C-alpha cells in the first residue's frame, strides 16, 4: 500500500514540476499539505483504528496523531512560504531558479515523513526517516550560501551518522525477533505482540542504538548540534520543516520505548531516556542563557523541550505519556509561531542578532508581541497549554525522584530567564525621537540607519499563520477538546500503557 501511496505522490510531484508561476507552485504545496491534513482527519474520524492495509501500511492513533501535527505544521508553513520566499528572492538571497527545487523538497519532505510514519516496518521507517533528512537538508541548503550548505552538511552528517547506529539497533531487534518467532520481523505490531518474550539485555541494546539515531533526528543532546546551526542559518521555513521532523525522532523513540516497557529492561531504558532528557534540558538551558541570536535561542529551546519530552516518556506512566503527546502538538504550534515571527524580524533587520534589533514595537509590533506571547507560551506559562502539560509531566516525574523534578524546574527557570533576557535586551532598544544620529548603540553594530525607518511590509500570508498558530495554542490552553482527549487516550492505550 505504501508503494501505491508513493507512486501516487510521485506522479503528483512530477506534475508539480510543470508550473512556472510561484503562486501555482505555492498553491500546490499548500494543497499537498491540506490534502494530507484532510486525509489524516478523515482517517481519524472514519476509520476503525488501528487499520492495516497490505503488509506495510499501518494506521493507528499514534502515527495519525503525529501526521496530524506534521500536516498542520506544513499547512502553516506553506502559507508562510510564499511571502517569505518572495522576500528572499527580492533581496536576491534566493535564486529564483532554485524555487522549483524548494517546493519539490517541500512536498517530498511531507511525503517522506508520511511514508515513514505509516509504514509498519521499522526498517522502512528508518529509510524514510533518512530520506526526510535528505529533503530537509536540501531545504536548508536552498539559499546555496556557504553558511547554509555548511548547516545542511552538519544536518546530514550528524543525523545520518547517528541513524546508522539506529540501524544497528534494528539489526539487533531483527535477530531477537528471529530468535523468538523463528523468522525475523521488523513490524511494529508483531514486535509489540512478542516483545515480552525478548531477551531484556539485547532489547535494551537495540533500544540504546535506536535511541542514538532517533535521538539525533529529534535533536536530543548531544546529537542536537545540527539544530541550532540549521535554525540560525536556514531560511525560517526550512527551519520550521526540519523542526517538524524532530517529531519523527520522538515517534521512533516512543515506539521503541513501548516495546521495552513490557520487558524487564524498562527501568534501564527509562534511565537512559531521563538521563538524556535531563542532559538535553541542562545543555540547552545553559546554551540559551547568553544567546544573542534569536533563532539559535529558539533552536536550543527546541532541544530543551525534546529533553522534557524524553523525561515525560521516560517516566513511563500513562498520565505522563498523555501529556507528553499533548506537549508534542503544542510545542509545534508555539515553535512555529515563534519561528514565523523570528522570520519576520529577520526580514526586517536582515539579522537574527539582538544587537541589530531596535524600535521593534514601532517597526514590527505584531511580530514583537507574537514573540513575547510565544516566549511566554514556550517557557510554559499559562494560559498557554504547555503549562498543564509541564505540570503533569513533572508531577509524574516526581515519582522517580523529587530531585529530578527540582533539577528540571531549576533548569527551566534558566531557560525562561534566557528568553526574558533576550527579549528585554532586543526589544528595549529605542531610537530617541528626533535625533537620527549615531546615538547610543547605533555605532557599535554598524547597523545602517536607512532601512530602519521603513518597516518591512509583512504579507498577509506570513502574518496569518503566525497569529493562527499562536491563537490555536492559546485556544488549547483555555479549552481542551474532547476529541483530542479521546485520541490521546487511545494512543496511550495502544502503546500498551494501562
Amino acid at each position, binding site marked *: 500500500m505504501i508503494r501505491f501511496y508513493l507512486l501516487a505522490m510521485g506522479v503528483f510531484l512530477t506534475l508539480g514540476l510543470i508550473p512556472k508561476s510561484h503562486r501555482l507552485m505555492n498553491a500546490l504545496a499548500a494543497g499537498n499539505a491540506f490534502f494530507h491534513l484532510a486525509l489524516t482527519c478523515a482517517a481519524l474520524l472514519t476509520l476503525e483504528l488501528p487499520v492495516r492495509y497490505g503488509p506495510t501500511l499501518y494506521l493507528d492513533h499514534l502515527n495519525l496523531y503525529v501526521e496530524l501535527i506534521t500536516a498542520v505544521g506544513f499547512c502553516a508553513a506553506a502559507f508562510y512560504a510564499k511571502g517569505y520566499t518572495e522576500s528572499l528572492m527580492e533581496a536576491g538571497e534566493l535564486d529564483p531558479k532554485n524555487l522549483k527545487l524548494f517546493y519539490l523538497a517541500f512536498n517530498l519532505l511531507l511525503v517522506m515523513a508520511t511514508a515513514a510514519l505509516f509504514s509498519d516496518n521499522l526498517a522502512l521507517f528508518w529509510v524514510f526517516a533518512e530520506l526526510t533528512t535528505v529533503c530537509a537538508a536540501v531545504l536548508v541548503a536552498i539559499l546555496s550560501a556557504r553558511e547554509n550548505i555548511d548547516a545542511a552538511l552538519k544536518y546530514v*552528517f*550528524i543525523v545520518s551518522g547517528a541513524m546508522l547506529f539506529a540501524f544497528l539497533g534494528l539489526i539487533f531487534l531483527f535477530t531477537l525477533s528471529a530468535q523468538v518467532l523463528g523468522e525475523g520481523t521488523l513490524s511494529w505490531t508483531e514486535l509489540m505482540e512478542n516483545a515480552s518474550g525478548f531477551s531484556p539485555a539485547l532489547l535494551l541494546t537495540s533500544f540504546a542504538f535506536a535511541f542514538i539515531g532517533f535521538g539525533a533526528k529529534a535533536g536530543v543532546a548531544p546529537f542536537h*548540534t545540527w539544530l541550532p546551526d540549521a535554525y540560525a542559518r536556514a531560511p525560517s521555513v526550512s527551519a520550521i520543516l526540519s523542526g517538524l521532523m524532530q517529531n519523527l525522532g520522538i515517534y521512533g523513540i516512543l515506539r521503541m520505548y513501548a516495546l521495552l516497557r513490557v520487558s524487564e529492561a524498562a527501568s534501564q531504558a527509562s534511565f*537512559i531516556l531521563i538521563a538524556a532528557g535531563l542532559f538535553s534540558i541542562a545543555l540547552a538551558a545553559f*546554551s540559551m*542563557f547568553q544567546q544573542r541570536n534569536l533563532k539559535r535561542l529558539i533552536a536550543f529551546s527546541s532541544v530543551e523541550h525534546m529533553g522534557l519530552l524524553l523525561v515525560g516518556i521516560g517516566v513511563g506512566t500513562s498520565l505522563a505519556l498523555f501529556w507528553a503527546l499533548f506537549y508534542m502538538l503544542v510545542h509545534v504550534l508555539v515553535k512555529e509561531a515563534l519561528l514565523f515571527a523570528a522570520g519576520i524580524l529577520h526580514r526586517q533587520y536582515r539579522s537574527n542578532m539582538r544587537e541589530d534589533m531596535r524600535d521593534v514595537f514601532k517597526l514590527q509590533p505584531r511580530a514583537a508581541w507574537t514573540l513575547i506571547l510565544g516566549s511566554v507560551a514556550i517557557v510554559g506559562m499559562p494560559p498557554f497549554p504547555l503549562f*498543564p502539560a509541564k505540570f503533569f509531566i513533572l508531577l509524574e516525574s516526581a515519582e522517580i525522584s523529587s530531585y529530578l523534578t527540582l533539577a528540571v*524546574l531549576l533548569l527551566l527557570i534558566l531557560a525562561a530567564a534566557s528568553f*526574558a533576557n533576550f527579549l528585554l535586551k532586543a*526589544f528595549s532598544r529605542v531610537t530617541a525621537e528626533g535625533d537620527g544620529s549615531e546615538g547610543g548603540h547605533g555605532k557599535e553594530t554598524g547597523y545602517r540607519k536607512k532601512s530602519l525607518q521603513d518597516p518591512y511590509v509583512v504579507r498577509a500570508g506570513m502574518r496569518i499563520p503566525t497569529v493562527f498558530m499562536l491563537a490555536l495554542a492559546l485556544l488549547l490552553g483555555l479549552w481542551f477538546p474532547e476529541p483530542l482527549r479521546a485520541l490521546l487516550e487511545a494512543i496511550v492505550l495502544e502503546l500498551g500503557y494501562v
Partner: protein
Amino acid sequence: MLEALAYGAVFALVSGTVLPLLYRSKNARQASFGLSLISSVLLLGFAGTVLYTGKEPSFPAFGFLPGLDFTLAADRLTAGFVLLIAAVLPGVSIYSLEYTEHAKSEARKALQAALTSLFVLAMLLVVLAGNMVGFLIFWEIMSLSSLLLVLHDYSSEENKKAGFFYFVMTNISTTFLFLGFISLYRLTGSAEFGPLEYPAGALTLPFLCLFIGFGVKAGLVPFHKWLPYAHPAAPSNISALMSGVMLKVAIYGFLRFLLAAASPELWWGVLILIAGSLSALFGVIYALKESDIKRLLAYSSIENIGIIFIGIGLYVIFRVEGLETLALMSLAGACFHAFNHALFKSLLFLCAGSVVHATGTRNIEAFGGLVKTMPATSALFLIGSVSIAALPPANGFAGELLLYQAFFQASALSANPLLTVFMVIALSSFALTGALAAALFVKLFGITCLALPRSEESRLAEEVEKPMLFGPAVPAVLCILTGIFSKQILSLAGWDIEFPDLLLLGLLLAFIYAALFLAVRAKTEIPDRISETWGCGFPALTPSTEYSSAGFSEPLVMIFKSIYRTRIVHRPEYFDGQESLFKNGHVEIRLLRFFEEYLYIPPALAIDSLSKRVAKLQNGKLDSYVLYAFLAVLTLIIATGVLV
C-alpha cells in the same frame, strides 16, 4: 446569589481587561477602571457575606483539563483575602483614572489599563481558585501581568534590570510552588487543597517548598531583593497593588497550606518566626538608609511581611503547643496585619506616586515642604505614616497589638523554657522593628513633606488632580476606620479575642483633644504670630542647613554599623592587557549589599560563566559536533554495557 456576586466581579474585571485593548480611547480606560470599582463593590458584598455568615458558596466545576476540573471555592480565609482585594481596589482604581493618563503613548496607556485589570483579576482568581492547578495558573498570570507592568518603561536600563530580576525571582517562586504542590499532589492524589491529615514528616518537603515559594513572592529575607528593584520601576498604582495585594496573595497561599496541615511541627513555627523576624528587622534597617522613596516603601513592605510571618510563626508554635486561644490570636493578628498593610501601603504608594509625579524625582533628599505645596497629599501621607508606624488608634497598631498580646502571653509556654527564651528574643526584635519603623516614617514624612523644599522641583510642585487625591483618600479613611473599629471587625469576622476597644480609646482621644483645644483657645488672649524664629545664628534658614534624610538616619546607621557595612570598590582601567599602564580609575565607597553580593551574585556569576563555557561547545565546527556524537555513542555503549 453569592456566586453571582463573584461571577459579576470576575466578569467586570474581564471586560475591564478587554475593553481598553479593543478601543484605544480615554473613555475605554475610564470604563475599565470603573468596572474595577464595580467589581470591588461586588467583592465587598461577596466577601462580607461569606465572612459574616460563614456560608460557603458553591461554584459549579468546569471541565477544564482531562482529569482536572476548574473550580472556584471560598471559605472564610478566602473571603478575608477577597475582602482585602476589595478594600484596596477602589482607591487604586480611582487613582489610576488620572495616573494612567500620564503614560507616554496611547498604546501604553491602553496596555497599562488592561494589564491592571488583568492583574487584579489574576490575584482575585488565585485567591478563589479551588485547586492547586488553578491556583498555579492564575499565580503565573498574576506574575506575568505584573511583570509587564513593571516593564512599562522598558527602555530604561534600570527598569530592564528590575524586570529581569523580578522575572527570575518570580520564576524561582513558581518553581518551588510547583514542587511543593506536586509533592502534595503525590501525597493526596488530588489537586484539591483538602485537609492534610498526614504525619508532619510526610509534609516536610511540601512545607519547605511552599515556604520558599511563597516566601520569595512575599519578599521574605533572604529572598526579598526583587522588591526594592521592582517597585521603583513599576508605576505607582501598580506598586500599590503589588505591595498591597500581591504579597498578601502569597501569604494567603501559605496560610492555606498551613491551615490544612493537620499536624505541623514545632520547627516549622520556629523557622517561620525566625524568617519573619529577620525580614522585619532587615527590611526596616535597610529602609532607614534608603533615599529613594519607592524603594524605601518596598523595604518597608519587606518589614511588614516579616511582621505577618511573625504572626504566622507564632500561630504554628502555639498550635503545636496546644494553646488554641493564643494561636487564634496570632493568626488573627497576622491576617489583620496583612489586611491593614494592604490598606496603608497602598495609600503610601499612591501618595508616593503623586509626589513623584509632582516633583519628577524619587529622591527623598530632593523633597521637602510638600505640606505647603501639596497639602492634601501630605495629609493623606501623614495618615499612612501614622498607620504604618503603628500608632493608636490607626489600623497598623491594631494588628501589631494582637501580636504583642500573643507574645506577652507566651508565658503559657513555660513547659518549654528554651522556647520561651526564643520568644523573648523574637519579642525584642519585634519591638525594635516597631520602633525603627516609627523612626523611619518620621524621617520619611518629615523630610518629604515638612520644612523647606530641598530642590526647585519640590518648590514648584503642584497638588495633583482630583482622582489622584480621592484615590488615596479611600484607603486613608479605611485605615482610620479599621483601626478604630478593630474590635468590632474582629468579632464580626468571628474571632472572639480579648482585645482593647480602640473605638473607646479613639473617642476618648478625640474628646480630650477637642476639650484641650477649646480650653486653650478660650484662654488665648494674644493671637498667634508668625515670625522668624531663632535659626541658631544663621542669618536665614536655607534648605542646605536642614537635616537631610541621610543625616536623620545617621545615628541609627552608627548604632547598626555592623549591618551597614561599606565596601570600597576599585575599578581601574588599563591601557594594556597586562594591566601595567594605568589609564583611568574609579573608586567608590558604597553600602555592602550583603544579600546581593553573597547570595544572589555568586550563583548568577557561576551560571553565567558556565553558560559561556557551554555556549562554546556549539562552535560551528562539524568536527566538534561529530566528536560529541562519537563520545555520546561511546558513553551510551558503555552505559548500556553496564546497565544490562
